[in-house]
Structure formats: structure tokens, C-alpha cells
């Protein structure tokens, strides 16, 4: 919007010299409009900046509290009077933080890879193959989107006990290794791949799997990336199912571990804030590095899904 306005304004000011008297008034007006626009921009920037500060303040407070010792924890200053890293040391020593972090990384990583592969394959099949039962299968998969996870956790738990999956990585992962949302998303994107391209590859003697892997999949890379970001984030932060299926301290994922540690710490908020910082700061760093891709990916996944 702003771009088109400024391009409209420039020809007027260039054309001004020959008929200066006629355009003087208009030029003054446009200058006033420009000044008004600059003021609006300034006010807007201040408001948005203050709002943004409020958004990130809890993180600032978290870090500040985590650097205070037990005596200073109730002081209101943002800068710790006597900064210390001992809270972090305590959390790292008293909990299996490293293990929890690794567990989360493993679970979210494998789940994401599995979702990316199987959801692409299923989405491609439903978009590009005509076969008996295709519509039925699609409706079947789509209908599972309406079932809330909470309805499934109890049957999953019974199932996990029956199969001795509790307290194992597979037990944490199995409900998420393929996602209906992702199948739907990938199908949408594969529909946009031209059929001519696939037929041409068939004439060249490519196998069906190779067409999917080498021709179609590279064309929907942005969608796969979006699905990966969405899936990884969801599994990294997942709470209710890991909470139910994990039994031992060392099998906990990061959110489950942090929750247990925090509720067992009573009012030792200097330690709880160090634990919260250890859980959030790595994610925030990754986010800041890849923010453009992450925001775009989540918007894409959210809108098309």
C-alpha cells in the first residue's frame, strides 16, 4: 500500500517546476500529508514497541530472576544485585536436564522425519492417483481431525499397557508419527504439481516411487519445510501424552521434566526460573536465527490446513 502511494506522489513533484504556481498548493498539501504520515508512523512505532516489550517482558523477568540468588529473588530490579549462575548449576546437577533435552530432541526429530515422509507419500497418492477407495480413504483420514487428542489418550494408554509400550521412546512417539493434518496439507500442495510432468517421467521409464521422490517432492519443498517446522514445534512442546506415558525420571521429555521439577521445588522460584530459561532459551535462539522461515512456515501450515 505504502509503496504504491509513494510512486504516485513522485511524478507530481517532478512535474512541478513548469507550472509551479498551479502545483504549489498541491505540493504544500502533499508535504503536510507526508508530515502527518510520518507522525502516524512514529506514534504507531511507539505503541507497537511498547506492546512488543510487554510480549517479551516475561522472558526478561525469567532471565533476571534466574540470575538472582535466593535472597534477592523478591527484589524488583531487572538487573540482579549480585548476579550468579549457581541456579543454573543447581538445575543441571539436580535434574537430568541434558537427558530430557536429548529425549525431546530425539522424539521430536524422529516424529518430524516420519511425518514428513509418510504424510508426503500419502498426500501425493491421494492427489495424483485414481484408484478404487481413494475418496473413502481420504474422508477416513480427514474425519480423524475432528477427534480431540484427549479422547484418545485413555485408549492409547490402555493400548500401551497391553503392548508394554509405556515408558519407552516408541510409547511417547507412536500417536504422532503420521498426522492427518499433514496428509491434508501435502495433498493440497501436490494437487498443484502438473500431471504432464508426472506423465513425462513415466514415459521416461521412471518408477512411481522415483517420480514421487525425485520429481514431485522437490516441487513442494516449501510445504514440506512448513510441515516439518509445525510438527517439530508441536512435538517439542507436547505435554499431556508424554506426561501420561512416561514413568521414570530419565525418560521424561523437557516439558514433563520441567513441570515435575518446578512443582517439586516449592517456592524456590530462582531455581524454577533457571529451569524455565534452560527450556526456552535454546528454542528462542533457534527461532531468532530462522525467524523468517519459521513464521512463514507456521502461517503456511496454519492457513492451508
Amino acid at each position, binding site marked *: 500500500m505504502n509503496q504504491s502511494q509513494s510512486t504516485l506522489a513522485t511524478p507530481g513533484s517532478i512535474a512541478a517546476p513548469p507550472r509551479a504556481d498551479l502545483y504549489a498548493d498541491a505540493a504544500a498539501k502533499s508535504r503536510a500529508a507526508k508530515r502527518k504520515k510520518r507522525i502516524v508512523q512514529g506514534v504507531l512505532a511507539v505503541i507497537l514497541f511498547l506492546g512488543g516489550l510487554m*510480549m517479551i517482558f516475561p522472558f526478561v523477568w525469567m532471565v533476571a530472576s534466574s540470575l538472582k540468588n535466593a535472597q534477592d529473588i523478591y527484589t524488583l530490579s531487572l538487573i540482579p544485585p549480585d548476579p550468579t549462575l549457581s541456579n543454573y548449576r543447581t538445575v543441571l546437577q539436580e535434574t537430568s536436564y541434558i537427558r530430557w533435552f536429548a529425549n525431546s530432541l530425539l522424539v521430536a526429530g524422529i516424529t518430524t522425519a516420519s511425518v514428513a515422509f509418510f504424510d508426503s507419500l500419502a498426500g501425493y497418492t491421494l492427489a495424483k492417483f485414481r484408484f478404487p477407495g481413494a475418496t473413502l480413504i481420504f474422508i477416513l483420514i480427514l474425519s*480423524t481431525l475432528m477427534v480431540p487428542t484427549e479422547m484418545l489418550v485413555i485408549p492409547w494408554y490402555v493400548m500401551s499397557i497391553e503392548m508394554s509400550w509405556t515408558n519407552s521412546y516408541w510409547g511417547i512417539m507412536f500417536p504422532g508419527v503420521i498426522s492427518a493434518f499433514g496428509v491434508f496439507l501435502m495433498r493440497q500442495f501436490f494437487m498443484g504439481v502438473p500431471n504432464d510432468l508426472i506423465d513425462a517421467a513415466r514415459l521416461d521409464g521412471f518408477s512411481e516411487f522415483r517420480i514421487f521422490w525425485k520429481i514431485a517432492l522437490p516441487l513442494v519443498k516449501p510445504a514440506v519445510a512448513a510441515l516439518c517446522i509445525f510438527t517439530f514445534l508441536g512435538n517439542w512442546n507436547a505435554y499431556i501424552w508424554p506426561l501420561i506415558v512416561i514413568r521414570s525420571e530419565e525418560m521424561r521429555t523437557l516439558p514433563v521434566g520441567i*513441570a515435575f521439577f518446578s512443582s517439586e521445588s516449592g517456592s524456590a522460584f530462582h531455581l524454577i526460573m533457571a529451569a524455565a530459561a534452560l527450556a526456552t532459551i535454546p528454542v528462542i535462539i533457534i527461532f531468532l536465527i530462522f525467524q523468517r522461515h519459521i513464521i512463514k512456515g507456521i502461517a503456511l501450515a496454519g492457513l492451508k490446513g
Partner: protein
Amino acid sequence: MQLTLERRRWLWAYTFIAIPLIFFLAIRIGPTLYAFWMSLHRWDPIALDRPYIGLDNYRTMVDDAVFWKAMRNTWVYVIVGVPAGLIISLLIALGLQRMIRYAGFFRVLYFLPYITSLVAVGWVWRWMYMPNGFFNEVLGWFGLSSGFLGSPGSAIYSIIATTVWHGLGFQVVIFLAGLESIPQDYLEAASLDGATGWQKFRGIILPLLNPTIVFLVVTGVISNLQVFTQIRNMSSAGTGGPLNSTISVVLYVYQQAFQSLPSKMGYASAMTVVLFAMILVITIIQLKVLQRDTE
């Protein structure tokens, strides 16, 4: 035996779809039906006997005061949380869209909470809400104080504030995408006709933003109906207190199935069936609304 080309392609399709299909049948559809089945039984995983009791679990629900409290609270989360999040995020998106410079920087600020773990930030907010925490210290300057999570009147709204804050970034980004799809010609034509900002907003932006709003309302309602993590981590002792003032249906389901002795998995399943029915109705309404839009 020679297969026709068409048959051979079918075979490929079935091979590709086999594992996902088995997964959805075994891990999604089967367990869904199983939840219905469980809701008709008295189900304690330790007991050998799991008798069929018909609709007794549903009848128990009708007389269970805590269930009704949880249901009422769940709808408070929805009815307060969803509009609050939507209005704030729309205002931010409208502001961000007008920014020529630094829009990307601001977007990062607003988006940041969304990517962090609700467990971790739940505890950060809990700390700020403490009687001697940040908020009360600041209120103290003006001679004020609030119980926040500690008092039955304000606890649920304190949790809603955290939920809104956490989800804001996602809604802002979706609104920005919706705003970008509005043709600039319409707004410029309206400006030439002398329309005020408010008239443009009511007459052009809001109607054209309708699909985005419907999407965000539906996803917001569904996610608020399932609210659990923040209550489990922010309410006192994680039990939905004080005095059940923050307990949600899902937290109550969790307590009945996994924390009560003996475990009442049948009863908990019956409650999830009710939750499922509510989500189903909302999804159907959404489909109807969107269909009307495209006609």
C-alpha cells in the same frame, strides 16, 4: 501374469497408502471407537472385571457438580479467551501492516511466546502472579494488590491472560496474511471517495477478513475447549484450584482417569465423548459458514 497399466498403478497407490492407512485405522479410528466402548463400562485398568453399565457414566455426569464446574469453566476459557485474543491480535496486525520499517522486527517480538513451551512460560507467569511477585510489587506502588492465581475470583482470568499472550503471535501472523489478500484498489478507491479509516475498516476490511476470522474463531474455540497444560502448571497444586475455580473438562478427565483411585477410565471416557460431540458441532457449524461464504 501381465497386469494392465491401470492395475499396476493401483498397486503402487495401495503400496504408498498402506502404512498411513493402517496407522489411521489402528491409532486414530480404532481408539476413537474404543473410547465410546469404554464409556459404557466401569473401567479400572487394575481390576479384572470391567462390567458393562450402559449409560450410567453419562448419568453420573449429570449429577457431578465438579463436572459441571469444569464444563462451565471450560466455556469461560472459550468465551473470554477467544474474543480477547482475536481483538488484540487484529489491532496488532492492523498496526503492523501500516508499518513501513521494522515490521519484521515487531513481528518477531509478538511471535516469540508462541514457539515457547507452555509449561515453562506457565511457570514464569505463575511466578509473576505470586503474592510477592512482579505484578503485586508493581500494584503495591499504587496501594493495590490482587490474589491473581490465589483467589477463586481472579484465578481463571489470570490463566486466560497467559493463554491469550501465548497464542497472540499465531493469530497476528494469520491476520496479516488475511490483510495482505485484501486488494489495495478497494481501499484506495474508498479513500478517493472520502471514506474514513473506520468506514474502510467496517465496510471493506472486516467483511473481506471474514474467512480468516472464522478460521481463527474455530481453531481458538477448539484449542480452548482442550485447555489443560496451563491449568495443570499454573493452578495451585495443579489441581484446578483454588476451589475448582480453574478446573477444565480435560483436567478433570485426566484426574479421573490417571490420578483417582480406583481409576475411573470409563467415566473419563464418557466425558471425552461429550467433548468430542461439542467439537463435532463446532466443526459442522464452521463448514456450514464457510460454504455459505463461497456460494
